[in-house]
Each structure stands twice: as C-alpha cells, then as structure tokens.
C-alpha cells in the first residue's frame, strides 16, 4: 500500500524522506565528503584491468562518444554489442591498410657512397709493404689541374673534382697501377662517364694476353671441328656453287702498351661507383667508329646499333672514341718531350721521355704561335693502328689456305705513314676556314699570371693548358668529332654480283614437239638401217 506523502517518482519531492535528503535538514551535505566520494568513484573507474589493460572510465567514454557520433536507433537495445565493438576496435590498427611506402630518396644513397669515398683506407701494414717493393704510384693532383683549367672557364665544380680525386685514389689502391691521370668526362644520355688514363705495372698485363690467347685457341679448335662436319655433309649432297667472297683479312690489334693501346682506361659513372676497365681497342673498331656518330647512353653494355655494324658494344665504342680523341688532341709544349735516343724517326719511335733541359717559353709566345705545342700521342692511320702492318703477311695458318690462290689477288695496300710523334700542331689541318686549334691566354688583365689555353676545334671539348713547366690535357664533352658538313651515314654496299652464268647452269630450251618427233623418226630410221645391215651381213654369211 502506498503511504502518504510523495511516493510517485514523477511527483516532486520524491525521495526527500530518505535520510540526508530531507528538505528540512539544515546541514548541507559535506562538500568535501561528496568530492571525496566522487574522487573515489572515479579512481575506481580508472582502475586498469589486469587482464586487458583497459579501464572502465575510458571504455565508457569511448562508448558514449561512439553512440553520440553515430546515433544508432534503439541504442539501448544494442548497448552490449556497441560495448563489444568498442573493445574490439582496440585491437585494430589505427592506420589504413593502405599505407604510403616510406620512400628513401636516392639522394641519401648517393650521399652514402660519397661519404664512403672519404673513409681512409685501413690495413696500413699491407700498404707499406707494397710501397717498399714498387715505387709509389703517382696520384695526379686533380685539384691543381682543376684550378688551372678553371682560369679558362673549363672544368667541373670543386666538389665533383674532389670526389674524382678521392675516387682515383681508391682506384690506385685497388689496381696495380704505375701512372694515373684524370682523362676527362664524357657525357651520355642517361649517365656520364668519368675516365681515368692509367698505365698498369708491367707484370699485370701479361696475364691478360695469355688469357686472350687461350680463348682464341679454343675458338679455333671449335671452328676446325665444325668445318670437318660440314665437309662430310657436303660430300653426300651436291655442292652448291661456292661463294667467291673472301672477307678482308682482319688487322690485328696493337699489343698492350704500344700504339692505340698504350694506356689502359678505367671508367665509372659517378665518383663512388666501382671503376670498370675498358677492353683494348682493335683497328676494326676504330675504322668503324670513324663512320658512325652515336650518343653514349651511360651503360657500358648497351648495344651500338648502327650501319656499318659496330663490332662491339658501348664499352668498345667508348674505348675507340677515347683512342681517337687522345691521338688527335693530346699535346704538350714543344721540347717538353724528346725521343729517348737518337733513333731513326722513320721507325716510328713510340717512346719519349721528358727533356730535362726544357725551358718553358713565355705565355705570350705559346698563345701566338702554334709551333710551340706538339702532339705526344701518335696519330692513328687509316688502317686503325698507329703502326702500319701489311695484312697479307699474316700468320702461317692463313698462308696455307692461300697457297692455292694467288697471293697477289688482293690489292696491294700501300704502306701508310702518318706524321711522326712529336709533330707540332701548327701542321694540323683545319676544316674549311676553321683552324684546328684556338689558342688564348686566360686573362689579358694580369699578364704575369696568365696561362696559355688551347681549345681543339676538331674535337670540341678537348682543352690543354700550359703554365711554365706544368701542362695538362683534358676532355669534357659528348665524345664526337666536329665536322662542318652534316654526318652522312655510309650507304649499304651494292648488291653482290650473281654467280657468273656459264654453260653449266644455263638452261637449255626444251625441244618442241616437232623436233622431238623428227628426232624420233631419225632414230628409228637409223635403227632400221642398222638392222638391215646386220641382216645383210647375216645373209652374206
């Protein structure tokens, strides 16, 4: 039964009869106690569960946030599910399943490589032993050279020059090198080439020659084996007419250390990347390189697709162009180098040595007259070599094959002679009205410190400087020769003559029907006559 007084929940005053809530109580409930009670309650709610690491306070807060955000219908009926979902969401990663990959820009990798250049070589004990055995290999002073060329406005920026300096030092430590020089930089489409001109110590080169000899012997054996098989097959079938085409004899390349292969070249794409050795150059490659003009891509194994077909890939093409540029543009002040002994110059003296009595002429003279400069690299002949060789005087194997044929069938090639070593550059031919070289002084304002600069017009990008006893050559460019006319590629050769028509292969005209009948009649008559004769003879007996 209901008592009297306000008992209904909707009526005001409900609950006021409980102790502590009566309106007649004068005492306000202790706020401190209330705060303490609230604090205790909150602390209880914030207690972290030992099992899951969640606490009730946060969980309620999350649930309420979720409900207020999403405002689902009939929230009170699905409250347990909502609570479960919120708990489950704790274990889901907060990020998208698709994340951007953290890109490591290649900048940092390149910076690492450059930094590696600066590391000082460990293993100093081995270093000292090596130095005692051989003379110390000479590291060229790249920065000094760069300074002189900078006076002419030529050269890379200082950072790059320094990286190249360090890279050369690494090269010397790794390879058995006697002398080393920074040859220059050739630009390419995708990457560039930094080139070092190097002379290896004497023992190292012989190993390569042996390896190559073995390879060629193995190939020769293979060819002989195949030749025998082909001959057997041919005996069984009728032989088609043999081609009378004989390819021109291959001109042998020059030995390592002489002529075009005097120096060995190492290239790398950027300082910090490993140095790759370029193979020696063959005359066929040089001859072909003269006929084509192609940009370098920057990858040494890229094919060179041209007509006439280049025998090799980009590494060989690069090597051939380096050889041509060196032969055409490496100059030194006249008199700096002299021949070792007074040998006959006709023999093509290959060796030169520094002239200790060289007196450097003043800069003004070096600029005004081109006779003060001389080539110190031998020019390349049309054949593709520095020293001419008669291709018909070849190895004994070829002579045996040629015994049947006359040796004089081939055109007698005239011996080619190029200008001897150490010719002055004033004798270089210009193209039309353009001289082959342009000489300038680096500055007109301060003549006592100016240096003489030479620019080549035949190979744009080849420069040389001279200042007192110092001089240097360098190349920065695309690696092509300048020609006033446009490049015209070689035309394909004319079609080969057909097999000469002689009586063996001329078709005879088939006999007509009348001719055949006449022939048949004639034959029968001849037979009949023969039988009559026999009969007559028989009757006679």
């Amino acid at each position, binding site marked *: 039964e209901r008592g009297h007084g306000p008992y209904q929940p909707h009526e005001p005053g409900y609950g006021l009869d409980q102790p502590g809530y009566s309106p007649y109580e004068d005492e306000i409930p202790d706020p401190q106690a209330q705060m303490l009670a609230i604090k205790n309650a909150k602390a209880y709610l914030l207690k972290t569960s030992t099992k899951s690491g969640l606490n009730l306070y946060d969980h309620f807060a999350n649930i309420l946030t979720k409900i207020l955000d999403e405002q689902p219908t009939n929230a009170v009926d699905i409250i347990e599910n909502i609570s479960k979902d919120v708990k489950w969401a704790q274990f889901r990663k907060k990020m998208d399943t698709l994340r951007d990959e953290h890109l490591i820009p290649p900048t940092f*990798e*390149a910076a690492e*490589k450059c930094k590696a250049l600066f590391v000082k070589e460990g293993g100093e004990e081995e270093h000292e032993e090596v130095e005692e055995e051989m003379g110390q290999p000479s590291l060229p002073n790249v920065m000094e050279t760069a300074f002189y060329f900078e006076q002419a*406005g030529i*050269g*890379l920026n200082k950072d790059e020059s320094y990286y190249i300096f360090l890279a050369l030092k690494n090269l010397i430590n790794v390879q058995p090198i006697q002398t080393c020089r920074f040859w220059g930089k050739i630009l390419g489409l995708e990457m560039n080439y930094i080139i070092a001109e190097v002379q290896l110590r004497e023992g190292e080169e012989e190993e390569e020659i042996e390896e190559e000899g073995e390879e060629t012997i193995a190939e020769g054996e293979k060819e002989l084996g195949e030749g025998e098989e082909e001959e057997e097959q041919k005996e069984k079938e009728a032989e088609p007419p043999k081609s009378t085409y004989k390819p021109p004899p291959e001109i042998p390349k020059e030995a390592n250390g002489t002529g075009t292969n005097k120096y060995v070249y190492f290239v790398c794409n950027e300082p910090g990347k490993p140095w790759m050795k370029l193979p020696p150059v063959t005359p066929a490659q040089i001859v072909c390189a003269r006929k084509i003009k192609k940009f370098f891509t920057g990858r040494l194994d890229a094919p060179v697709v041209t007509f006439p077909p280049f025998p090799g890939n980009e590494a060989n093409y690069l090597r051939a162009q380096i050889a041509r540029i060196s032969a055409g543009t490496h100059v030194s002040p006249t008199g700096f180098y002299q021949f070792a002994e007074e040998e006959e110059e006709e023999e093509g003296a290959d060796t030169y040595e520094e002239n200790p009595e060289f007196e450097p002429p003043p800069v003004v003279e070096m600029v005004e007259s081109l006779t003060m400069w001389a080539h110190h690299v031998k020019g390349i002949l049309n054949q593709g070599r520095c020293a001419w060789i008669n291709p018909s005087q070849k190895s004994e194997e070829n002579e045996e094959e040629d015994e049947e044929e006359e040796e004089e069938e081939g055109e007698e090639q005239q011996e080619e002679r190029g200008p001897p070593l150490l010719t002055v550059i004033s004798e270089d031919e210009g193209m039309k009205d353009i*001289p082959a070289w*342009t000489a300038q002084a680096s500055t007109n*304002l301060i003549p006592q410190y100016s240096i003489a600069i030479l620019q080549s017009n035949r190979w*744009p990008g080849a420069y040389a400087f001279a200042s007192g006893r110092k001089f240097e050559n360098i190349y920065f460019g695309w690696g092509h020769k300048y020609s006033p006319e446009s490049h015209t590629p070689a035309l394909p050769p004319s079609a080969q003559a057909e097999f000469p028509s002689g009586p063996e292969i001329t078709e005879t005209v088939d006999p007509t029907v009348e001719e055949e009948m006449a022939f048949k009649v004639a034959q029968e008559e001849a037979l009949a006559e023969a039988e009559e004769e026999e009969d007559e003879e028989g009757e006679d007996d």
Partner: protein
Amino acid sequence: MEALSLPAALSLVAGGGAGLSPERRAALGASLPLVQRDYRFERVWFWGCIQGVRGAYYIAEGLGPDRAAPRSRLYSLNCLDWSLLTPATKEMLALTEQVKGRFQGDPSFEYNLSEINAEAAARLIESGKEPVIKEETRLIATIEQIDRTVGIVPRGAFVKTPLGPVHENRQFEGLSLVEAKKLSSYFHFTEPVNLKNKTLLEKADLDPSIDFLDSLEHDIPRGSWSIQLEKGGTVVVLRSLLWLGLTFYHVPTTKQFGYVYFGTGEKNLDLPFML
C-alpha cells in the same frame, strides 16, 4: 639564369665541363647590375656564351614586367661592355638558316651570301643591299632560335594573370623528385604552339594559370632531351641534344632553376642519326 644567383647556378651546371673563369664571373657580377640600372630591366638573366673561333660572345637578357614578352638581348665580348641587339625578324631567321659553320668571334665579320645561297643573294642585290650576312645578324637569329626551341622553365614557376602578363609564381616551391624526372613538368618559355591541339580531355586537367605553355613531352625528335639526376637527386639537369651546350638545372623542392648555353651556336642536325 638569374644574374643574382649566378655563382651558385654556375656550380650546378658545371657537370658538362663548361663554365666561366673567375675573371669573367667577377666581371659579370659587376656589369650585370649596371646593365639592369641603365636599361631599367626588372630582371637580368645571364643567357650564356657562344664560342667563336677567335673569340666568344657573352649574352645577357633583360626582362620587363611581363616575363613572357620578347626579351631584350645584349652581347659582350669581355663581360664588361654590353651592346644591345636588335630584335630578331623573320627574314633574319630565314637568311641565317643557310649559314653553317662556327661563329668567327668578330661581330662585324661578313658571310658572303652568294657562296651560300645564290638566290637569296640575288634578291638582296635587287633590293639594293649587299649580299652579305653580318655575324651580328647571325648571332641574333641564333639566340632567338635557341630560346624558342630549347629555353625551358619548370611547370608552375610562372603564372599567367587574367589580364595577360606573366609573372613569377611566388607560391612555386619547386618540383617534387618524382615530377622532376618527367619531361611533362617542363615548359618551353615561348609562345605555345601545341597547346591548342590538345584534346578536350587533356585540356580539362590543365590549370589555365599555370599550364599556358608547351611542355617538352611532344618535342620532335623524341629523346632530344637528356634528363639526369646528379648527386643522387639533389639536382636535376636537362641537357638539350638538339642544341648541344644548353643545360637546364633545377633543385627539386626549392625555387632554384635556370638554363644557360655554353656552346658553339650550331644546331645538331645529326641528332636523328645519333640517338
């Protein structure tokens, strides 16, 4: 390249081996501001250097308030005394197409036209002039051609206002590394030729304030630009293969860019054979 940022820019372009000697740099640093003062240019660009057989021409360009307006060009033989060049005309361009070979280095040198092209010489004689082309004319025409065909800027560096004039975009913060490797992020800084030929679909994606120039994508022949990232991507360098010697540099994510020409001033007509 901007005259003000010349030292830094020259070191970024030096990958090709060409640059300026300290004497010339110092001279430029002194004379270009004077040029700006005398001719009242808003900006002065050092355009580059054309190597002649006996001397070199150093070229500077001055820009007015509208950056896309025809630029005034000046040349100097020693980087100190600058002479203004007359603007290029179509006749000049047509005549100098015939002249081949290196520049001589002397601005008053005269090419004998009758050797090169008898018809043009005859026409000139009829109109009462001598059948010669002065090297100065050839210089003007060459610079104009180079600027027209291979003068480039990155996308977004310049913005076109609704009234017409073109200004530098102050919001330009540089191309990102990914964009910098694409040819489509660079524009020819001349009157656009191919823009109208784009399909409607492509035009819809363009932003008319930024994309008002031709991009490099459709240059003929394909592959006539070599893009390289130097130093692992700190600098992107574009070299033109059509005019050998033109180098454009840009440091991605910064405002630095510019192009300069160091070369002989001859078009590379062998390009199709060389690719």
